């Protein structure tokens, strides 16, 4: 009997397969098949939804409340839409401390206010003890388009940017679970990306928030979508020092660690310098960097390549299975 495995939801290749082979054919329509982070609907509206099941629900740098607002807001932003209204559906396990619930709702309220979005509808369900793990949250978001992703216009010479240091959210969660007994100053990067909206009018051709599967998976999926290979330079990718130390000890490749407040952008060659300056002047993206460019000399169509700090080239593959540290 075939069983659903964890990897089917981990943002990697198995999840892509599931979406393409099961979901798309079942619900086929012109909005869904674009497979972007949000559906782009008539009248310039964008709609997105996401469910949040993070464990633990409170972690350094955020909690499930900040996450469920930022995550959905960010999906709209990278689709070219200004987020306006959100729904909030809570699935709560019987026995969750009321104080935790209140703390989460405070986070939701604060994060919504910070993003200038309103929670306009919702739902509350409580399930018997053991039938859910503390709390799951689903949010949907809607907003008006202010720009449009144009992957078809991406051409050699266009620049690839990240909006800050990568991998902290994934690592913070891993460490918060304490399986590794390693403490670190790494905090989740969970944050809104609304500051990116103006860039849609200043040369941005494509954006994607870097979530599950990390930077490598996002790059590899972008390469699949366009007509030219991508090349990024390892030495230009920003990582925090605390993260570098921890991944070294754990033997984890930080290119596969998730973020919750970072995005990858492709910006027209001529606009990239200005876009970078704009990002660096904003304290939320002060460590933004141009990490590479769209190629026509190195690599083949469909490939995302990394020039390593040692000067070698390697292919970036999408995440294939949940991260595990080395055993020997």
């Amino acid at each position, binding site marked *: 009997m075939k069983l659903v495995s964890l990897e089917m939801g981990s943002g990697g290749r198995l999840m892509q397969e599931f979406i393409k082979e099961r979901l798309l054919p079942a619900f086929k329509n012109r909005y869904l098949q674009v497979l972007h982070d949000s559906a782009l609907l008539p009248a310039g509206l964008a709609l997105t939804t996401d469910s949040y099941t993070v464990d633990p629900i409170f972690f350094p740098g955020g909690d499930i409340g900040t996450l469920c607002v930022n995550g959905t807001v960010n999906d709209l932003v990278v689709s070219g839409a200004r987020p306006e209204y959100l729904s909030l559906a809570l699935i709560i396990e019987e026995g969750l401390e009321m104080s935790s619930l209140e703390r989460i709702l405070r986070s939701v309220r604060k994060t919504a206010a910070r993003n200038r979005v309103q929670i306009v509808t919702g739902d509350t369900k409580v399930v018997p003890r053991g039938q859910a793990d503390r709390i799951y949250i689903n949010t949907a978001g809607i907003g008006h388009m202010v720009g449009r992703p144009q992957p078809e216009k991406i051409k050699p010479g266009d620049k690839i940017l990240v909006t800050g240091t990568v991998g902290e959210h994934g690592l913070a969660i891993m460490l918060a679970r304490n399986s590794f007994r390693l403490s670190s100053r790494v905090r989740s990067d969970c944050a809104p990306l609304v500051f990116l909206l103006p860039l849609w009018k200043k040369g941005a051709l494509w954006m994607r928030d870097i979530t599950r599967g990390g930077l490598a998976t996002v790059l590899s999926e972008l390469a699949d979508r366009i007509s030219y290979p991508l090349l990024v330079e390892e030495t230009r990718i920003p990582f925090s020092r605390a993260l570098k130390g921890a991944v*070294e000890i754990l033997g984890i490749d930080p290119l596969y660690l998730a973020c919750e407040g970072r995005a990858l952008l492709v910006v027209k060659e001529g606009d990239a310098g200005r876009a970078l300056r704009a990002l660096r002047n904003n304290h939320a993206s002060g460590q933004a960097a141009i990490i590479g460019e769209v190629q026509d000399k190195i690599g083949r169509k469909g490939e995302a390549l990394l020039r390593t700090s*040692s*000067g070698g080239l*390697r*292919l970036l593959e999408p995440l294939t299975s949940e991260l595990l540290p080395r*055993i020997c």
Partner: protein
Amino acid sequence: MTPKKKSPELFAEWRSGSTVRNLLKTISGEIIAIKRPIRIMEVCGTHTMTLHRAGLKPLLREAGVEMVSGPGCPVCITPDYYHEAIINLVTSQKNILAATFGDMTRVPTARGSLQTTVPFPGSEIKIVYSPEEALELAGKNPGKEVIFFGAGFETTIPAIAHTVKKAAEKKLTNFSLLAALWLIPPAIEAILKSGEVAIDGFIYPGHVSAVIGQKAYTFVAEKFGVPGAIAGFEPADVLLGVLSVSRQIRNGRPEVSNEYRRVVRTDGNPLALTLMAEMLQPFAADWRGLGRIQNSGLKLKPAWKEYDATTRFDLKLKPSRSHISGCRCGDVLKGLIGPLDCPLFARACNPDHPLGPCMVSYEGACLIEYKYSSGEKKK
């Protein structure tokens, strides 16, 4: 106030493009002097990882050095019948808690993998990140028989053996070890004796060597006349090893050079070696691909038999005839073929549907090739 001065980044120098370029240039000079390309086996899976992750393999090839992966992945060389024995146990008895490392749970066998196994009611399979965690499970689950299926080379063997010692000290009566413990030097000797693979030299595993010491490989140079170097795991470490081996070849003076002196001593780690000698004894073990090799495995000495899962549960560790057809992991482990030469590679066998352990383990040559290498594969 002046800002606090930041310490230089730990490994930056060992990874820098300029260091790597200079080393490659020097290596290339040696190969020109040797007047033919050379083949070096990196015994350890973590070295294979370094070579691919840093993108060094094509650069070395240009310089005239072909790197061949060896048997240095404990998950890969552990025979199927170890997995089958523990799968049989956990599906047929209640109150068994089988604990093992994550990679081990995904190894496919004719009986499925530990990951796909549905345990007997009341029994379970748990992933642990360290041997110590397996021991803690025994303390936390007094009603269960905790069996730690521990696989490893000399690097991890002391830590695995230590759990048994600790269990005895803590008087834990529900803890036992299914030992899948393998020794590197006998495997190297077996590869040399078989003569199947033409190898000009070895890169010896850095962390195995930290335990067993530089002298453990003396026989390779003295008896077989084959050069070798112990190397660390940063790109420049591996290249230093390659450079040393090329120099030995050019000079015609094979030896065991230590290019990982910041970690490895001539005599190894005496504390770890004493613990191993106290608790474990060698036996003729089966390696996937290499077959049975004299004195290449370690098992608990009879004094510790109550902690030995094989005696405690009367496990049958006998070679089974089941084999996944077409999988050439064995030949990959021997260095006879590269992953790309296996007809299943990236087709029937891929990280989502691995057919052999080399595609499962993070140190398996096939998974590493699949994950990191561009080129003539896939689709």
